[in-house]
């Protein structure tokens, strides 16, 4: 789909996905989306197309803005903490579902998570956020065959065993980072007012 035929909503969805996956924090993403959305509305009222605002390549536009908005080291930090948080949350869910203090990570389960994660990120960067139903569909269509194939090729011997405290520990850095950011934002708001 070219930018010419895209709606403003689709452009905002693609920008949101790109900014989130590029490690821009949520308050900044909201701020950028509000600014872009207002511009798209003003331009539409003046009879201009979304393409006039974001150009031919909406992903390049989003990437350029992300680079300008947040320095690389902060984006990498945010992205790294996000990956740890998602991994920890998935492991905690496994602990909960199996009601066990130790989760075994087999090649098949690892391949499932990596393949589904890669496809979802790739699709969302191009087309905007996927709905829950479509994410399940990706899991079925992509993840299941890869899991079965990996189990068949590599066996189901566990690669590693993860204790509950390790899973909890993985979620802590992002939680602490988020709380610290929220406290800093609240501290700044009264000053700004």
């Amino acid at each position, binding site marked *: 789909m070219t930018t010419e035929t895209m709606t403003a909503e689709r452009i905002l969805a693609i920008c949101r996905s790109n900014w989130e996956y590029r490690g821009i924090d949520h308050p900044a993403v909201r701020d950028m989306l509000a600014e872009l959305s207002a511009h798209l509305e003003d331009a539409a009222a003046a009879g201009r197309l979304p393409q006039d605002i974001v150009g031919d390549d909406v992903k390049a536009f989003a990437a350029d803005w992300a680079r*300008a908005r947040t320095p690389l080291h902060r984006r990498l930090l945010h992205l790294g903490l996000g990956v740890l948080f998602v991994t920890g949350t998935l492991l905690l869910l496994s602990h909960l579902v199996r009601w066990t203090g130790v989760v075994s990570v087999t090649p098949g389960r690892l391949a499932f998570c990596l393949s589904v994660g890669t496809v979802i990120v790739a699709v969302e960067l191009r087309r905007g956020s996927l709905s829950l139903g479509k994410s399940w569909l990706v899991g079925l269509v992509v993840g299941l065959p890869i899991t079965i194939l990996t189990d068949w090729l590599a066996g189901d011997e566990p690669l590693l065993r993860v204790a509950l405290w390790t899973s909890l520990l993985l979620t802590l850095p992002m939680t602490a980072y988020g709380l610290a950011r929220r406290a800093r934002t609240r501290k700044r708001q009264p000053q700004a007012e």
Partner: protein
Amino acid sequence: MHRMTKEPPTSGDPRRSQLLRGALDICLLALIAERPRYGYEFVEALTEGGLELVSEGSIYPLLARMERAGHVESFRAPSASGGAPRKYYRLTRAGAAELARGHTVWQDFTAQVNGILATTEQTRGRHAHDDRNHDGRTDPGDLPQ
């Protein structure tokens, strides 16, 4: 690379795009120095001044860089046209100094370019005149019978 400026309708010269890319930050600082503005107002002011951008949104990465550099700061306020509050940009003291520096550099640069173009144009004119005289002497058709 994200394209920044529209091909000008009159000349279709990509050089205009490159020149605008180099001067867009000074233009934005100058517009903010006039009064605080939000994104769409910059585009309107640039268009009124004869500078049309290929992708209007290309001002946002630039504004973000200027905000990070401390040249501008932003605040939210309702717009005159109504709707949701807009993100306005205003100039900081560092931004005013940057604008003054940028203005001086631009004036010096354009004066130097104009100087070179004017000097070489005179030289080219003289050479053309000499060539015409030279051709006139060698062309037998031009010689008096």
